[in-house]
């Protein structure tokens, strides 16, 4: 057998369409995942197009296509910025028709967004990734038949965490391939620190007002930490209402807390590299903990609550320290011990970096490419599916396509 046959499976160039459900220019794990995936696929020489809602189309990179303005919609207990409607459906259809994709990869397909619309209007190899562990079945309950039909078109399901996988299996049955999220290790390991501080610095990252991020737990532990360690400071990165935060600590400690506000990804990486310990006091809702990996990639020791997802990322404590979830006294103890132990911090810095390499994007990319290869067929691309869809038929009326079978089938 010639060598070309053997190598072929690894080197076939693919045309990949990625669909992002949330606004490209609002920060979020799903968007970051899609951006990293797109960049890594491009690096491997594949053709990539990302369809995404976006607030300001100027901000889109070359490989992204404007999927429309997101609208604020109450969904799943919070306000989500999503894109829906007839115009959005038309845009998805146009994108699919012009893209000639070997594979279309939608993200978070259960959310009522461009992703679900894509499942609905596309035909052919569709891959879907579930990110969230709290997939509500509301979409399925309301339009069960339609949603089920759309989901049936997903040939390959990927879950980024065991929790995401379990919820997906519970709701839809069947199985999913587990491909844990990746971190672009080089993007965090190779940057210059943001600044130097006179004393040790601890960093918190995330929305201060979001209870599940657990800033309150850290603030409750803060007086004890300050009492134990001289000239220690807390750096808060992300949206934060300073007065609201400062109200939670005694007045004399106000000057130990510094707000850097929301930072760009690049500056966030630099900030992570410049602090001594990163603290993730999250009380729940984390299905993976990519931010832990980012800190570890930056070589910053991590102290995290003992959520199952965090314990797994930290290799059961070997790559970072944990404390009892929600227990401020325990956090103060663990944090104080670590900040005052230079050797342990150096050890965790190395161990964390090694652990982060296990989750490096190159591995994630190889896994995802294997999935693409398993569902796509040379010479067969994703087309527009109009079968059994009233709206599709209506929108297609002008082309005289009454039976909704405009696309010629390959089989």
């Amino acid at each position, binding site marked *: 057998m010639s060598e070309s046959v053997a190598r072929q*499976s690894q080197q076939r160039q693919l045309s990949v369409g990625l669909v992002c459900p949330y606004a490209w220019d609002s920060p979020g794990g799903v968007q970051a995942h899609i951006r990293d995936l797109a960049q890594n696929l491009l690096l491997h020489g594949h053709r990539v197009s990302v369809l995404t809602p976006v607030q300001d189309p100027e901000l889109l990179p070359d490989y992204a296509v404007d999927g429309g303005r997101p609208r604020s919609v109450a969904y799943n207990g919070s306000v989500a910025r999503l894109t829906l409607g007839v115009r959005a459906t038309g845009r998805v259809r146009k994108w699919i028709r012009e893209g000639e994709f070997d594979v279309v990869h939608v993200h978070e397909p259960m959310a009522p967004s461009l992703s679900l619309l894509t499942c609905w209007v596309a035909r052919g190899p569709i891959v879907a990734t579930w990110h969230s562990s709290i997939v509500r079945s509301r979409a399925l309950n309301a339009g069960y038949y339609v949603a089920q039909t759309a989901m049936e078109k997903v040939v390959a399901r990927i879950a980024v965490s065991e929790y995401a996988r379990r919820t997906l299996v519970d709701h839809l049955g069947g199985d999913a391939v587990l491909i844990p999220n990746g971190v672009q290790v080089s993007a965090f390991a190779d940057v210059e620190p943001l600044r130097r501080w006179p004393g040790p610095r601890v960093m918190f990252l995330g929305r201060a007002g979001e209870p599940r991020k657990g800033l309150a737990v850290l603030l409750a532990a803060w007086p004890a930490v300050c009492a134990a360690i001289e000239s220690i400071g807390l750096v808060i990165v992300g949206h934060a209402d300073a007065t609201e935060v400062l109200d939670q600590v005694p007045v004399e400690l106000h000057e130990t807390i510094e707000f850097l506000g929301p930072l760009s990804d690049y500056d966030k990486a630099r900030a992570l590299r410049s602090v001594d310990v990163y603290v993730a006091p999250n009380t729940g809702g984390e299905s993976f903990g990519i931010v832990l990996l980012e800190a570890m990639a930056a070589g910053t020791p991590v102290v995290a609550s003992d959520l199952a997802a965090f314990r797994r990322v930290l290799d059961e404590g070997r790559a970072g320290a944990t404390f009892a979830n929600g227990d401020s006294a325990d956090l103060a103890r663990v944090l104080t011990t670590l900040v005052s132990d230079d050797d342990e911090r150096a050890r965790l810095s190395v161990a964390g970096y090694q652990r982060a390499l296990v989750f490096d994007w190159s591995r994630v990319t190889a896994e995802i490419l294997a999935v693409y290869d398993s569902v796509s*067929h040379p010479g067969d691309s994703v087309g527009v599916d109009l*079968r059994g869809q009233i709206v599709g038929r209506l929108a297609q009326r002008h082309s005289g396509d009454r039976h909704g079978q405009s696309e010629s089938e390959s*089989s």
Partner: protein
Amino acid sequence: MTLADVFLIVGIVVVLMAIGLYLSMTAGRLDRLHRRIDASRASLDLQLARRQAIALELSASGLLDPATAAVVADAAHAARRASEISDSGQTHSPIAAPDSAVGSPPSIVNRWMVESDLTGVLVEVFGDRYEVAQVMELPEGEELLAALAGVCRRVELTRRFLNDGVRACRQVRRHRSVRWLNLAGRTPWPETVEMNDTPPTGLTLGA
């Protein structure tokens, strides 16, 4: 005709249209699922063929010791024969069947057993990271083993996606409306593929 009659007729028409719409959507859904299964079967066949090709290439490469090479080649040849026979069986040629019936030809079930045997051989040969590392050192070794790692993972994935499709299809075909109105037509009841496809532990998938 009274107003009540008109309402009755309109009502009946609406109900009939709704039923018709439901049936046409379900038929479309089934058709899509059958196509999906066909595509997955084609993918699995393709990946299995690639796995055979890479295994044969490995056994002929001189990277393995002669004994190991012979075992790998034997298993790969057997798998190729089994897939060729099942391919010719799939064409449903009524004339060819009696001629080839001399000594019962391997059935489809048998084919998966032969592929499982190849899996077993590969797991046995490349299960040890140390031994794999030795082969990696040799010229061509890294490339061939990377190809093998990739194809083993792809076999595992395609079979999983195929069985997912079969399960979804069966769910729809068990519906009363589908059974009573024979919406599935003459398409045979979908079967899952059961075989051992564990990738060898010594190989790691890399970019």
